[in-house]
């Protein structure tokens, strides 16, 4: 098959607030329901200031490590786990999701949540991952994490909160800069 050149991305801009968010967008399941946890964090710029106009998406396996194939992320029925959520940050740069701890998708694999980051001033979306902190053996042999320097690796691993939730911050630039991922084959990669 012919190879086509991908269409360029562009910034999400400042005015997505009435378009991309939707009812229960950040509630992959109802807050307080059995097994639910909070995933929260703050998005920071290169000066260490919170960014008030970013929007995040998460996509993950269910608690058993199964990849969901169910529709209903935009109109949630309250029972179906679709694996997808979207959270615009508030004025203090904080995002919040209600979700479950993803299970390992393969035996011995380190469970993680896939993340896409969009913001005004960010020219193109960025991909990253947030890993659960517990299974240190799995984390140690994870192909991505083991390819990173220890100080960079830390940026992809969430902290476990006393209430069972996860805290994970995103730093777009500077000290502790989050590792962002390039899934493209070598040619045409963005800079």
């Amino acid at each position, binding site marked *: 098959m012919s190879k086509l050149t991908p269409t360029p991305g*562009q910034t999400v801009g400042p005015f997505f607030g009435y378009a991309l968010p939707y009812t229960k967008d950040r509630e992959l399941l109802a807050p307080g329901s059995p097994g639910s946890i909070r995933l929260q964090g703050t998005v920071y710029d290169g000066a260490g*200031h919170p960014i008030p106009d970013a929007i995040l998406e998460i996509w993950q396996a269910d608690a058993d490590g199964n990849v969901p194939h169910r529709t209903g992320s935009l109109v949630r029925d309250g029972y179906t786990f679709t694996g997808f959520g979207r959270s615009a940050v508030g004025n203090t740069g904080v995002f919040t999701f209600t979700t479950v701890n993803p299970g390992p998708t393969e035996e011995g694999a380190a469970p993680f949540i896939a993340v896409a980051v969009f913001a005004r001033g960010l020219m193109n*979306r*960025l*991909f990253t991952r947030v890993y659960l902190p517990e299974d240190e053996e799995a984390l140690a042999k994870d*192909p991505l994490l083991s390819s990173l320097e220890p100080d960079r690796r830390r940026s992809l691993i969430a902290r476990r909160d006393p209430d069972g939730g996860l805290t994970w911050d995103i730093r777009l630039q500077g000290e502790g800069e*989050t590792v962002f991922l*390039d899934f493209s084959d070598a040619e045409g*990669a963005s800079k």
Partner: protein
Amino acid sequence: MPEELNLDIFNADPITEDVSDEATEAAPKTYAPAGPALDAAAESQADLSAEMKAIGEAYAQALKNGAAAETQPRLDYAPYRSSLLRHPTKDLHHADPETIELYSPAFGHMDVHALEADLTIQHNGEPLGERIVVSGRVLDGDGRPVAGQLVEIWQANSAGRYIHKRDQHPAPLDPNFTGVGRCITGADGSYSFTTIKPGAYPWKNHLNAWRPAHIHFSLFGQEFTQRIVTQMYFPGDQLFPLDPIYQSIVDQDARDRLVATYNHEQTKPEWAMAYNWDIVLTGSKRTWTENEALGAGGDENE
């Protein structure tokens, strides 16, 4: 280039900067014919254009020296001032997508009603402006249709005003136009929206900065790695050379991929002008199932 940057932006209070950056913070309560007060400290279009020109010339030289053509916007593109503190300074880390990343969230007709693709029927009356139909196909990098996937759009009204509360450009809101639409692609990857041609609008990147008319598009592929948000432009816009967001894509062929074409054959007499725009996502990393290869939509999975 870097030495020409106005470093004051690094010291700006982020919240104030963010609110005032692309909207008028102290917006007039009523329409002021003279327009909002101009910021005397703002940089001129000539300054910005010179910066963009220098980047363009450096890119042309790199191409001559054998560099590969760029296909995406630069994350580090200083003429878009808001990007200064918001671009990663380290190279993106190459990763092979794993399980979850090789699939995409499923959306279907449970999520999106067919009428959401018509932005002109969301209120009691007809919106003001030039009615248009924007249609095309979503394909992956191998040319396969992206079937049964979500497309979301949002845009300014015909006067160049967004509903968003931070947009305080003193142009009229249209009570009959919100500017948000969604659809699910057909088996052939096709989408079609009926809407109003958006107006250009001013923003505060520099003095007299105007965005070319555009429609924001949000797209999902069959794999999460194919996710993109972008902007579609209209052909022949005089603002292209002046706009740092469009210019952040330094390659002309790549820029052209964001510009729709006018289609007179599809234009509906005495009703709506037609524009076409196809979107290509990145290539697929996963071996497809037979259903996917046949173009099964999200609802098939229920």
